[in-house]
C-alpha cells in the first residue's frame, strides 16, 4: 500500500487525536474516576495505533499500543489514575508529538521510545490483582471453562500447582502473530502446562485474533518469573498474570465464584450502556467537515473581493440613465454579491478554540514549575475569528497568561495569609461585541501597584519625576506596555525571544486591535484585548491629497478638525496647533508623501490620528468620507514603502493607497 499520499492526512488527524488526548488527560487529572473520559482516551489511543500501524510508523504504533494498554487497565479499574500514571501519560503524549514531527527519522527517537515504553509497561505491571475483578468482562471475553478444564485445574492444584490466567498482548506492528503465539506456547511448556487458550489454538494458528490472547495454565513458577520471561520474547508488548476468575480459593477448596461474577458482569454491562449513550467526541466534529487547503481558500476570497469591487462599479453605472431591466438585473447582482461576500468571509472564520486549547496544559506545567496553584477557566472558545488573527494572537496571549501565573498569582502560602483561596484563578474569555472580538485575561492575584510602576519607570529613565507625578493611574498602568519597561526576567521567559508587554501591544495593534489593562491592588489584574473580526476588510476614512486618494484606517483616527491658518504656530521648527489646551503636531501629508499640495484653501482639513500613544494631525486637501474597503496587499516590488500599508480598489475603479499611520508619524 502506497502510503505517501496519505501522509498529510495522517499527520493532521493524528495531531487532532493528540490534542484531544491532552485535553482529556487534564480532565482525568481533576477527576480520576471519570470513566467516560477513560473510555474515550482508550478509543483515541486505539485509533492512533491503527493509523500508525497502517502507515508503517512502527515506533508510533508501539508507543500508542502501550498507551492503549495502560488506558485499558485504567478503564477496567485494575489501575488507578494517580499522579505518577498521569505524568507517564503526559510524557508519552509529548513523545508522541515529537515522533509526529520526526516521521522520517524515527531512529533518532529509539532510545526515548524505549524508555517511555518501559515506563508504560511498568505502569501496567503495577496494576493490582484484585481477586474480585473479572478478567475482560467489559469486552465480553469470558473464559468459560468447561467441566473438563475445571477438573484439570482441581487436579493440578491438588498436586501443588497454581492456576494462572495470562493475557498476552502483542505489538501492534507484529507481522507473524501466530509464530509469536507459538513462541509463547513453547515458553509456557517450560513452566507447566496450558489448560486452555482463548482464542483456541486453531484460531491462533490462523491468526484469527487482533493483538492479544489469553491462556489458562497450571504452574509452580512465580508470576513475576513468567511475566519477565514472556516479555523477553520480541514483539510481546504486555503480559498480565492473574487469578483464574472462575476458580476462587475458599477454605472449602476451589469453587466457582459464579454468583459474584454475575453481579459484577451486570454492573459493568450497565455502565457500558451509559457510556455508549453519552458518547463525548474527543475528535472534533470530523464527520461534518471537509479539509481545504488554505491557498485555495485564499484564492476564492480574493476573487470574491474583486467581484465585490466590480459590483460596486456596475451599481454606480446602473444609476445613470439606463434601461429599467438593466437596473433590476444590477440590483439582483448586488444582492447576490453581498450574500456571497458575507458567506465567503465566514469561511475565514475559525473558532478561537484552536488557540485556547493549548493553554490549559501550558498553565498546568508553568504553575507546577513556579510552585503556584492555578485554575484556568476558559470561556467562549467557540467564538470565531478571522483565520489570520487566530494565527497571530497565540503568542501575545501566551505572554499575558504567563505574566498572570508568574507575577499575578501569589504563592499558595501568601494567598492563604491574605485570606484568599490557595488556588488562584485565571479567566480566559472570548466574546463578540459588535464587529469586534473581546478577549479577556483576568486573574485574582496581587494586582499591580501603580506607585511601583511609576518608580520603575523613573528609574529606567522613561519618565522624569515631574511627569510621573502628573500621571493618572490609568496612564501609569499603561506604562507596562512601554518599550524598555520589561524587566530582564520577563524577557527571557518565552522561548528565549525578546518578548515583553510592548511586543504584545505591537502585535495586537498590527492587527488593528487594541489592548488595555485594569487592576485592583490585592485583588487582581485584567487585560482586555480587542480585535476586529476580520483583517481583510476595514473601515477607512478616504481623503484626497494632491489629487490622489488615500485611505486611513478608522482604528487609528481620533477625530477630524478644521483648522484656520492663523491658529498654526511653529515650535522648534515643527508646525503645531492648540487643541483644547493640548499641543498637536501637524504633518502636511502632501509634503510628506512627496507630492505637490493641490489645495490652497484657507481652512485646513486635519485628520487627527494616534499611534504608540502619540497624536498627530494629518493635513489633507479634502475629507471624502468613510467607507469599507477590501485590503489588497501590494506586490513585492513596492513593499516596504514607508507609510503605506497596502492598497484598495475603489468603486470607481481607482486605486487608493492605505496609509500605515504608525510609520508616518
Amino acid at each position, binding site marked *: 500500500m502506497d502510503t505517501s499520499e496519505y501522509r498529510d492526512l495522517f499527520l493532521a488527524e493524528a495531531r487532532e487525536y493528540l490534542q484531544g488526548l491532552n485535553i482529556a488527560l487534564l480532565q482525568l487529572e481533576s477527576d480520576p474516576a471519570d470513566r467516560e473520559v477513560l473510555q474515550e482516551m482508550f478509543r483515541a489511543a486505539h485509533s492512533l495505533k491503527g493509523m500508525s500501524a497502517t502507515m508503517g510508523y512502527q515506533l508510533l504504533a508501539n508507543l500508542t499500543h502501550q498507551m492503549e494498554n495502560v488506558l485499558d487497565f485504567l478503564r477496567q479499574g485494575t489501575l488507578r489514575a494517580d499522579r505518577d500514571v498521569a505524568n507517564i501519560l503526559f510524557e508519552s503524549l509529548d513523545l508522541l508529538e515529537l515522533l509526529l514531527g520526526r516521521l522520517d527519522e524515527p531512529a533518532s527517537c*529509539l532510545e526515548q521510545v524505549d524508555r517511555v515504553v518501559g515506563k508504560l509497561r511498568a505502569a501496567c505491571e503495577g496494576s493490582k490483582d484484585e481477586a474480585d475483578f473479572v478478567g475482560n468482562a467489559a469486552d465480553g471475553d469470558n473464559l468459560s471453562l468447561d467441566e473438563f478444564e475445571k477438573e484439570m485445574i482441581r487436579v493440578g492444584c491438588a498436586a501443588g500447582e497454581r492456576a494462572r490466567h495470562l493475557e498476552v498482548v502483542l505489538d501492534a506492528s507484529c507481522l*507473524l502473530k501466530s509464530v509469536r503465539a507459538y513462541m509463547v506456547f513453547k515458553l509456557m511448556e517450560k513452566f507447566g502446562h496450558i489448560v486452555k487458550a482463548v482464542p483456541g489454538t486453531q484460531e491462533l494458528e490462523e491468526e484469527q485474533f487482533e493483538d492479544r490472547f489469553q491462556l489458562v495454565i497450571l504452574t509452580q513458577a512465580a508470576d513475576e518469573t513468567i511475566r519477565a520471561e514472556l516479555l523477553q520474547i*520480541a514483539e510481546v508488548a504486555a503480559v498480565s498474570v492473574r487469578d483464574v476468575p472462575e476458580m476462587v480459593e475458599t477454605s472449602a477448596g476451589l469453587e466457582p465464584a459464579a454468583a459474584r461474577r454475575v453481579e459484577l458482569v451486570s454492573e459493568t454491562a450497565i455502565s457500558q450502556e451509559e457510556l455508549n449513550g453519552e458518547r463525548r467526541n474527543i475528535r472534533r466534529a470530523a464527520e461534518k467537515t471537509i479539509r481545504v487547503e488554505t491557498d485555495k481558500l485564499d484564492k476564492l476570497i480574493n476573487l470574491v473581493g474583486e467581484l465585490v469591487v466590480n459590483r460596486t462599479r456596475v451599481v454606480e453605472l446602473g444609476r445613470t440613465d439606463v434601461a429599467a431591466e438593466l437596473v433590476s438585473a444590477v440590483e439582483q447582482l448586488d444582492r447576490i454579491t453581498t450574500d456571497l461576500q458575507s458567506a465567503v468571509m465566514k469561511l475565514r472564520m475559525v473558532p478561537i478554540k484552536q488557540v485556547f486549547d493549548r493553554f490549559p496544559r501550558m498553565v498546568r506545567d508553568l504553575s507546577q514549575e513556579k510552585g503556584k496553584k492555578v485554575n484556568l477557566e476558559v470561556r467562549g472558545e467557540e467564538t470565531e475569528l478571522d483565520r489570520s488573527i487566530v494565527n497571530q494572537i497565540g503568542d501575545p496571549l501566551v505572554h499575558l497568561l504567563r505574566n498572570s501565573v508568574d507575577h499575578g498569582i501569589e504563592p499558595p502560602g501568601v494567598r492563604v495569609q491574605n485570606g484568599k483561596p490557595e488556588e488562584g484563578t485565571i479567566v480566559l474569555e472570548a466574546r463578540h461585541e459588535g464587529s469586534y472580538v473581546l478577549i479577556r485575561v483576568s486573574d485574582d492575584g496581587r494586582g499591580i501597584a501603580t506607585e511601583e510602576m511609576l518608580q520603575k519607570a523613573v528609574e529606567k529613565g522613561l519618565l522624569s519625576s515631574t511627569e510621573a507625578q502628573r500621571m493618572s493611574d490609568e496612564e501609569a498602568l499603561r506604562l507596562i506596555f512601554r518599550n524598555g519597561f520589561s524587566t530582564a526576567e520577563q524577557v527571557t521567559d518565552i522561548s528565549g525571544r525578546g518578548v515583553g508587554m510592548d511586543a504584545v501591544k505591537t502585535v495586537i495593534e498590527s492587527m488593528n486591535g487594541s489592548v488595555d489593562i485594569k487592576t485592583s491592588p490585592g485583588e487582581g489584574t485584567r487585560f482586555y484585548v480587542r480585535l476586529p473580526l476580520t483583517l481583510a476588510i476595514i473601515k477607512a476614512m478616504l481623503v484626497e491629497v494632491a489629487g490622489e486618494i488615500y485611505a486611513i484606517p478608522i482604528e487609528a483616527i481620533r477625530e477630524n478638525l478644521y483648522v484656520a491658518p492663523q491658529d498654526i504656530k511653529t515650535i522648534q521648527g515643527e508646525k503645531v496647533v492648540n487643541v483644547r489646551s493640548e499641543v498637536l503636531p501637524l504633518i502636511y501629508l502632501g509634503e510628506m508623501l512627496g507630492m505637490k499640495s493641490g489645495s490652497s484653501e484657507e481652512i485646513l482639513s486635519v485628520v487627527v490620528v494616534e499611534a504608540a500613544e502619540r497624536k498627530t494631525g494629518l493635513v489633507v486637501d479634502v475629507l471624502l468620507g468613510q467607507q469599507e474597503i477590501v485590503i489588497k496587499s501590494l506586490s513585492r516590488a513596492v513593499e516596504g514603502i514607508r507609510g503605506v500599508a497596502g492598497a484598495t480598489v475603489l468603486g470607481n475603479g481607482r486605486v487608493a493607497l492605505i496609509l500605515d499611520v504608525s510609520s508616518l508619524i
Partner: protein
Amino acid sequence: MGRQVLITDDTAFMRMTLKNILEKNGYQVVGEAEDGQVAVDKYLELRPDLVTMDITMPRMDGITAIKKIIEADPEAKIVVCSAMGQKSLVIEALSAGAKDFIVKPFQAERIINAVQKVIG
C-alpha cells in the same frame, strides 16, 4: 558484549541493506554468505556473535544451515529472516534453534530491536 555479525541472504541487495542498518547502529559485519553452505563454513571460520539467516536459498536452505550450525555450536545465536507467508518455516527454524525472527521487508527499528534482544 561482542557485536560481530554474519549476514546470510541469497540477494546482494538484501545483504547490503542489512549491512547498512547494522553498521549504522554500531554492529560489525564480519562476513556475508549467499547460501546455507557458505554460512556454515563462515560461521565455523569467523565464530561471529550473531548470524542472520535467510530461509529460502539455493544449494542449502536456511533451516538446514541452522541445524548444522547449532550442531557444531549449541550456543550459536541465529536470527532467521523470513518473508510474510513463511509461518510454518519460521516455526521450524525456531524449533531448530533460532532465537528470533524478523519479517521482510525490513524495518530498521525491528531489526535492531531483535538483534539487541539477542546479543545486546
